[in-house]
């Protein structure tokens, strides 16, 4: 049974990746112009190895600053204009169609689908909570009148939120538009609830 996580109880003391308190612990995660490596003055912090992840903390609980602004979605700024965001349910339909074609093409043994295809298809199917992706797209497109970007619409569709508070908590970039968006968002969520698959 699918369970929605609830808001966390507020606690004293915030974590921050010591940008203020500990100047050594300065992280720059996504830098498109770099070769993609995490840049840390500590040295070759390799996040892929779980054991070294603890090196960051240097043994106690280091404060982590809530960089709310830098954690907002910036999809449209980082990708070219001709890119179309797909909801997981739309991607699942496209990838299933390709998989069916592969059954026909599989006579040529040199054509094989890569591992990332199977992983992508499995992920898209598990993230698919709706019976009809076109109806979902139609319902959510109403939000574009309120300056909600396509990437934000896709995040709302993929997370399948139940309340307006959940939407604003998950998509922080919408918080600034909360006043004008709350009512239409509530109507949209009510419509989406009718389109959900029964579990």
């Amino acid at each position, binding site marked *: 049974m699918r369970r929605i996580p609830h808001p966390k109880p507020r606690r004293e003391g915030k974590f921050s990746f010591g940008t203020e308190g500990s100047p050594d612990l300065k992280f720059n995660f996504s830098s498109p112009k770099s070769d993609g490596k995490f840049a840390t003055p500590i040295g070759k912090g390799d996040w892929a190895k779980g054991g070294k992840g603890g090196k960051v903390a240097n043994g106690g609980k280091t404060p982590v600053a809530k960089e709310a602004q830098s954690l907002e979605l910036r999809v449209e700024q980082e990708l070219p204009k*001709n890119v179309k965001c797909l909801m997981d349910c739309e991607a699942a339909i496209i990838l299933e169609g390709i998989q069916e074609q592969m059954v026909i093409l599989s006579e040529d043994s040199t054509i094989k689908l890569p591992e990332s295809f199977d992983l992508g298809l499995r992920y898209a199917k598990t993230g698919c909570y709706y019976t009809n992706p076109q109806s979902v797209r139609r319902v959510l497109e109403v939000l574009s009148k309120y300056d909600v970007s396509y990437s934000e619409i896709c995040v709302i569709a993929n997370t399948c939120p139940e309340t307006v508070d959940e939407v604003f908590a998950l998509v922080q970039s919408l918080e600034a538009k909360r006043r004008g968006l709350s009512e239409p968002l509530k109507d949209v969520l009510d419509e989406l609830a009718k389109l959900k698959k029964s579990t």
Partner: protein
Amino acid sequence: MFFHIVLERNMQLHPRHFGRNLRENLVSKLMKDVEGTCSGRHGFVVAITGIENIGKGLIRDGTGFVTFPVKYQCVVFRPFKGEILEAAVTMVNKMGFFAEAGPVQIFVSNHLIPDDMEFQSGDMPNYTTSDGSVKIQKDSEVRLKIIGTRVDATEIFCIGTIKDDFLGVINDPTTA
């Protein structure tokens, strides 16, 4: 998040592939070269969905190979900072846990796990709340937020958090 995107690539073809099936050979080579690869800008190329245009071929001096500019449509998967994903936990240790969302690996440090969850070692290491009501272990499904990404030649690796509101365990395999 999945995207549908048009990309362009210069494909080199050996003259032995010329003839009636030149286009098919070019498309097969494109699929073998591109599907499953990953880049920092576009993420994982999950599947090619169509060919938009194949330009005129240019013979390369000295080799006889011909270069064709090919525009193709494809589905890519790329995680973004700030994105919310639902991932399946693959490994739990005292530093945190690893999870998978499609082809992307995500690590959630114990510093980004709520304070009321403690690591429990054993045959099935897990993070559990003090009252035992919520448990994160292998095969649990969690909703997390991406706070950083790293790309290398063959994969994308992310750092995530479950410390914010409405993040955490969705499905516990022991109660499913």
